[in-house]
């Protein structure tokens, strides 16, 4: 075992983690980034379409409109103080990224180019606005690269391929983390004054997902096991346009450029569901529309997919119909969406310039997660009590800025805005805080759990358990939910947790790069988050944003303008906990914008 000491530890090296590390180190803190992947492998790199900021480079825009879209897109569950911070800080953050060298596409006058994106409008929902700042269809890649480059320039310390498996608490504070050095299998203890979790989401709970294999919710599960609640776990976004069967994302930017959704009858069906902004409605709205079309037998060839059509013929026909003068050419599509074309050509043998793309909704983004305030400090209860020394930012965190449904581009905004705020907050905190001592043998419990898994000699491989979980969660806790299905999924997940403890089969008993072991450990994390998701979904007896209950189809503002806090039952980190996680729904949504501006008060959400 080795012990390290840094004032601030950042766990995860995606956009939020790198942003936090950069700003904490610029603020004078001694920082190390601990990540199970090489930083450039992080999932931020796959974000395609853009980062929203009201720069107004191509038409009038205003951060308040961005905040409004965020609140409305989130079906009024977003905390309005956080939405305001997000929209206002977005402008500075994007300009700062440009100053760091990020190669945004340019307007003819040399400014950052912007495109339309789902749910982003001008003047409080009037019409779509060009707000998404983009670098072709690899905006996330450019953000990740730029931030990593700047971390190198600023000599940030990295522990690459160190997998964090536990967080250390002592005297009521967070004092460090435990990691496995993947190359050697050795346990490392990181002692710190502050820890920021930026470990991303957990899309691998579901079987059709846009998420990397690495997105197993480690950071969230580790915190959950140590008493931090999970907030709003029932809100998980299914992105409408994943490549059929594969789940690989097709950016909303395709629709921003004029692409349309077409059902098996050749109809542009979004006209029925969102008469005003049609294909550019919020993601939850579009995903449900696709499911309903498929349910009504309007899938393509009677199957469970529809078409996304960006062929110039189709796009120009609808542009003409809408009275717009703009037209697109095959060259425009090639230039603006090169990666999308590449995915379709490689994986489907379909050329989107000539043919429509078969798509279906894909599990994409966790709105819920580790509760934080607007400075990325982790909070423990409905009153917002801060856990000293612990921070979270990016997808793993729930500020909550996305509420019940995240708008496209706002994930990138979230990670730069709150990663930066978290980094700055940590730098201030460590200036005045002393190191709280480590407890005795902090690694003992997780080491025992890893040894148990390493020597598991049951009959079921982790892959089999994982696939079963993914299927039951897709069926029971997917785009649509109802009590019976959720309960069935919950029972299955509990059974899987039992089998994970009693019947697991691990082939690799070694220490060096034991991915058999680490994948199994990740499965343990996924199973706990799946349980928390199902329990939270069962409890919320209304439909809001991404949480669509067939047995409670209406939004219920009377009773449900509250966040869900889900606490793990007592039990060791490696134990199958008994009984339901405890739920608390006393945390009310922040309505500070609505208090001064009636336009922010909850209304029927129509697009």
């Amino acid at each position: 075992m080795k012990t390290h000491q840094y004032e601030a530890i950042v766990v995860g090296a995606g956009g939020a983690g790198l942003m936090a590390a950069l700003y904490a180190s610029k603020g004078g803190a001694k920082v190390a980034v601990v990540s199970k992947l090489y930083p450039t492998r992080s999932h931020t790199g796959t974000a395609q379409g853009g980062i929203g900021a009201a720069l107004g480079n191509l038409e009038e825009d205003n951060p308040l409109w961005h905040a409004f879209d965020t609140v409305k897109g989130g079906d009024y569950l977003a905390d309005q103080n956080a939405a305001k911070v997000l929209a206002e800080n977005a402008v500075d953050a994007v300009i700062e990224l440009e100053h760091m060298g990020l190669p945004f596409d340019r307007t003819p006058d040399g400014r950052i180019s912007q495109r339309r994106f789902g749910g982003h409008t001008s003047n409080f929902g009037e019409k779509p606005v060009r707000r998404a700042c983009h670098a072709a269809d690899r905006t996330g890649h450019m953000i990740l690269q730029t931030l990593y480059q700047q971390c190198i320039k600023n000599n940030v310390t990295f522990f690459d391929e160190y997998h964090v498996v536990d967080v250390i608490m002592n005297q009521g504070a967070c004092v460090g983390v435990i990691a496995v050095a993947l190359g050697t299998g050795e346990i490392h203890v990181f002692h710190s004054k502050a820890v920021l979790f930026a470990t991303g989401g957990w899309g691998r709970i579901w079987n059709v997902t846009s998420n990397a294999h690495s997105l197993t919710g480690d950071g969230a599960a580790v915190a959950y096991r140590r008493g931090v609640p999970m907030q709003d776990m029932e809100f998980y976004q299914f992105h409408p346009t994943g490549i059929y069967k594969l789940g690989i994302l097709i950016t909303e930017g395709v629709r921003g450029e004029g692409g349309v959704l077409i059902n098996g009858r050749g109809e542009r069906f979004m006209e029925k569901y969102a008469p005003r902004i049609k294909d550019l409605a919020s993601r939850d709205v579009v995903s449900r529309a696709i499911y309903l079309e498929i349910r009504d037998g309007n899938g393509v060839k009677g199957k469970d997919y529809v078409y996304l059509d960006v062929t110039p013929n189709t796009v120009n026909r609808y542009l003409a119909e809408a009275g717009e003068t703009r037209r697109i050419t095959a060259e425009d599509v090639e230039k603006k969406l090169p990666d999308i074309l590449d995915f379709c050509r490689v994986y489907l043998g379909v050329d989107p310039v000539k043919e429509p793309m078969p798509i279906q909704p894909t599990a994409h983004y966790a709105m819920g997660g580790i509760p934080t305030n607007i400075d990325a400090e982790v909070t423990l209860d409905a009153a917002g009590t801060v856990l000293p020394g612990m921070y979270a930012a990016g997808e793993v965190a729930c500020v909550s800025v996305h509420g019940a449904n995240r708008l496209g581009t706002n994930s990138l905004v979230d990670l730069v805005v709150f990663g930066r705020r978290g980094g700055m907050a940590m730098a201030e905190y460590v200036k005045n805080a002393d190191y709280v001592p480590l407890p005795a043998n902090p690694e003992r419990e997780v080491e025992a759990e890893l040894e148990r898994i390493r020597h598991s000699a049951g009959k079921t491989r982790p892959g089999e358990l994982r696939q079963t979980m993914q299927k039951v969660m897709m069926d029971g806790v997917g785009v649509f939910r109802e009590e019976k299905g959720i309960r069935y999924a919950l029972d299955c997940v509990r059974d899987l947790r039992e089998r994970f403890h009693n019947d697991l089969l691990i082939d690799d008993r070694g220490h060096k790069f034991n991915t058999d072991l680490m994948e199994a450990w990740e499965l343990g994390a996924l199973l706990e988050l799946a349980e928390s998701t199902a329990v939270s979904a069962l409890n919320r007896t209304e439909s809001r944003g991404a949480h669509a209950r067939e047995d409670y189809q209406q939004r219920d503002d009377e009773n449900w303008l509250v966040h869900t806090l889900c606490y793990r039952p007592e039990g060791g980190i490696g134990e199958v906990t008994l009984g339901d996680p405890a739920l608390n729904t006393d945390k009310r949504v922040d309505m500070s914008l609505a208090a001064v501006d009636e336009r922010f008060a909850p209304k029927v959400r129509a697009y």
Partner: protein
Amino acid sequence: MEVTFRIRRFNPEVQGKNKPYWQTFTVTDVDETDRVLELLHRIKWEQDGTLTLRRACAHGICGSDAMRINGKNALACKVLARDVGNKIQVEPILGLPVLKDLVVDMEPFFAHYRQVMPYFVNDTPLPADGRERLQSQEDREKFDDTTKCILCAACTTSCPSFWANGDYVGPAAIVQAHRFVFDSRDQALEERLDVLAEPNGVWRCRTIYNCTPACPRGISVTRAIGEVKLAIQRNTRDGIILNPPEHGDNVPG
């Protein structure tokens, strides 16, 4: 269809497996559109959990799963069964120390990356209006191709010059440098070109051209290296890139 895999294996911890050897696996019910990565996962998840490889995004963006597939460098997630047929040989990329099975030590690769100052430098005052620095669409276009690099190492580990001399910074590092050398906003041109003009910089490139077809992102790697060579010779970035490569000029695979 049924696919036979021949996989190069190595496990430093197990007696009898601590020297590289070949192992054969058979995977049944393979769809021709299955990715090689999926099939490797099926081996790992259904037959032998000890099979070790890196992967993350599984669609060609994160750059984790570069390997030699039927003798060619590629990302396992971007090669479909139909591209390679029913006999698939998989080995680690060459020129970097093998740690276990398909996992190589990436540190020497990233060390070369860090050598070329892979970051934006501009210390002049920011625009007074608090806004972005301006750049024309033409200037932005000049380095577009090299911004696609995902640091997967497929190019560098396909390069005979790199195999012969591991101190050569290699194609990937030069591609990364190119992205800054030809960015009109960057101001460390001279310093960066000095690094690239050193004995283990661009001049180790013998224009063998392996790197370009190896790139899973379709970057015209050899061309980019040539442009950096020209910039060093002329001591300027101006007037070198007149027609940037169009997307699709260099189709991967």
